[in-house]
């Protein structure tokens, strides 16, 4: 059993395959989503602090820095949704007898459909 060769592990293993990079981008969405959710808590806090405090906070949020931050947050959140719905047919296959529900259809039924409904509903409520 002498002398097996063990390859050293690269610290930056996640750059070794394009699939690893895509994986890491998907995982990193959670950092941005978490960051946004903290900001959302601040927004809820200001809402509880009265009209003046809330208006002041909204005016701060309309600045370029916060706008940019929210653009980044939106991209991360949407990317989370897209990658999550892509994984759903793999993780939760639906069988109709011998046939598996085709992945694109399953993603629409269990992902994109409910997603668009929820998003449209929330946006409609605020804008109406």
């Amino acid at each position: 059993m002498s002398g097996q060769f063990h390859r050293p592990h690269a610290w930056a293993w996640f750059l070794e395959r394009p699939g690893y990079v895509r994986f890491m981008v998907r995982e990193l969405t959670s950092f941005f989503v978490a960051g946004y959710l903290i900001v959302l808590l601040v927004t809820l806090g200001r809402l509880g602090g009265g009209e003046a405090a809330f208006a002041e906070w909204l005016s701060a949020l309309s600045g370029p820095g916060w706008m940019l931050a929210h653009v980044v947050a939106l991209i991360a959140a949407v990317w989370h949704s897209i990658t999550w719905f892509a994984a759903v047919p793999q993780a939760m296959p639906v069988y109709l007898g011998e046939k598996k529900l085709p992945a694109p259809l399953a993603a629409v039924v269990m992902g994109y459909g409910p997603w668009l409904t929820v998003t449209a509903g929330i946006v409609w409520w605020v804008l109406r």
Partner: protein
Amino acid sequence: MSTELTMTLEVFRYHPETDHEPRFQAYEVPYDEDWVVLDALNWIKDHVDGSLTHRWSCRMGVCGSCGMMVNGDPKLTCAVFLKDYYPRPIKVEPLVNFPVERDLVVSLDGFMDKLEAVKPYIIRDDVNDTSGGEYLQSPAELAQYKQYSMCINCMLCYAACPVAGHEDEFLGPAALALGHRYNKDSRDQGQAERLDVMLVGEAIWGCTFVGECTVVCPKHVDPAGAIQQAKAVGAQEFFKRFVAPKGAGV
């Protein structure tokens, strides 16, 4: 006759009795558009360097012995053609995430232990009782696991999995997919035994669904999907404990 076309294979060499470190050796091989990488390796061994060591058997993508890294991708060398790389050189290395025994040959020991651990065979309480005849199975029941039964143990998925490379406790894509394959088999009664192995430590939970196992699988097994489904079964079993006391018929 026209001049014979050739191309270069850069082959990973490591002989433990003489080499402290692996090295790469370049070989000029005849270029034939019908040749796969394995043909070129066999040509080198037959005509240039008999000391080159590699595994192969069926040459038709069934035995799962000839998996190697081809230009950094885990591939069955019997299934990748020279013409897909010509005229650029091809770099051939042993599968990553396994200890190298010699040249292109990796150690199978760790993989075999993991495979055995998930009990990849049908387990029944009434195994010696054949009075009831065959165990019948409907096409719909077969469909539940058929895809996961196509595994040929070629280990390409382990070479594609960063978790398999970093976490020793992780059972890895093929073994977990096979465990799930038997758990989903309507004739099987061994799920609890297998889950006792799969749900321990990082055995299955090390998986972060990178998904590259499914990308490289030559048999379209989708180990990544099987592992997530097996995790979901594990989660159900976890919460069942609070609903039904141990021993209750749930």
